């Protein structure tokens, strides 16, 4: 390799390189490019700090536990977002309670829904793919969760 490839080897290598690129579907590349829309978003990130499923992952899981309602908590410096996954919807509350707007971001786009004056909201149906929630409260706090896949 230090002396380089001869013409045949170089042709074979180049063909392989071009094929590797051609094998990648356009939609896969576009998904990557569109991710840049999240660059420099001016919202505070909320980290996943509790996942009821993860809490039990170390121990043998019984069916009754696995079937129980899954609860998740995302926490930022200014507020938490508590989520419960039910059969058909995602119930949430902003803690400490306050009203605002919840945006559900999926790869298909963004939908908005209100959180009532005690911070409760409901997302239905539950997004099929990865999504994240952006919470803008009436007092001006702007918080974005990490990506969630349920």
């Amino acid at each position: 390799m230090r002396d380089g490839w001869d013409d045949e080897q170089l042709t074979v290598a180049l063909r392989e390189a071009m094929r590797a690129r051609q094998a990648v579907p356009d939609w896969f590349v576009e998904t990557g490019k569109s991710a840049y829309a999240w660059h420099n978003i001016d919202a505070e990130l909320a980290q996943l700090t509790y996942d009821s499923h993860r809490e039990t992952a170390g121990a043998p899981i019984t069916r009754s536990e696995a079937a129980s309602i899954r609860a998740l908590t995302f926490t930022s410096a200014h507020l938490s977002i508590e989520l419960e996954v039910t059969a058909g919807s995602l119930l949430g509350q902003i803690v400490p309670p306050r009203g605002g707007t919840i945006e559900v971001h999926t790869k298909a786009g963004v939908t908005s829904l209100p959180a009532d004056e005690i911070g409760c909201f409901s997302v239905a149906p539950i997004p099929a793919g990865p999504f994240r929630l952006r919470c803008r409260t009436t007092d001006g706090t702007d918080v974005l969760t990490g990506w969630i896949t349920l």
Partner: protein
Amino acid sequence: MRDDPSVVALVVRAAGSDQSAWNELVERYAPLVWSICTRFQLSNHDSEDVGQTVWLLLVEHLGELREPAALPGWLAKTTARECLRVVTAAHRSERLGTRLDDADQFAASAVVDEEVLLAERNAGLRAAFAELPPRCQQLLAMLLADPPPSYAEISAALDIPVGSIGPQRGRCLGRLRRSPALVALVEGDIGVTVPGGEPGA
């Protein structure tokens, strides 16, 4: 490979607010992310989820990448981890409590190392090809087809005499070999193996 200046420059620009630099990074490394998804035999749907997660993680960590040149390794590891997550989630729905075991982790790290080397070689070759004059790109593109067209067909398509196709091919490959993108690859001494078996085969 660890100090590819073009990749470092792209990461720095993308960490600013340069969408075109980001697009170039994605073009360069999407084949790496895709090939690892393929190694894990993910469906298109799962591959899309993994790809999306990987690029979003990169977007969020662009400013924190301490060694931008280590990006391919980071991308490959992150992709393999996400693939394992998808695969084990699928297992878990069939068999409760399945967890990653050491064998899975080991297999993933072997995949990562192989794919990073291959992806860097391929990206270097594509970058070198992109730097060639248009005439060389046209000629080599025809010769790369499988099966390649006859010299008579190439002659007609590119309007060059049959007798000069061989010499032009040699000159174009020579330019390719000397291009900075490929020289950097060779000097990086990344243990690239020659594809296609025996020399001149």
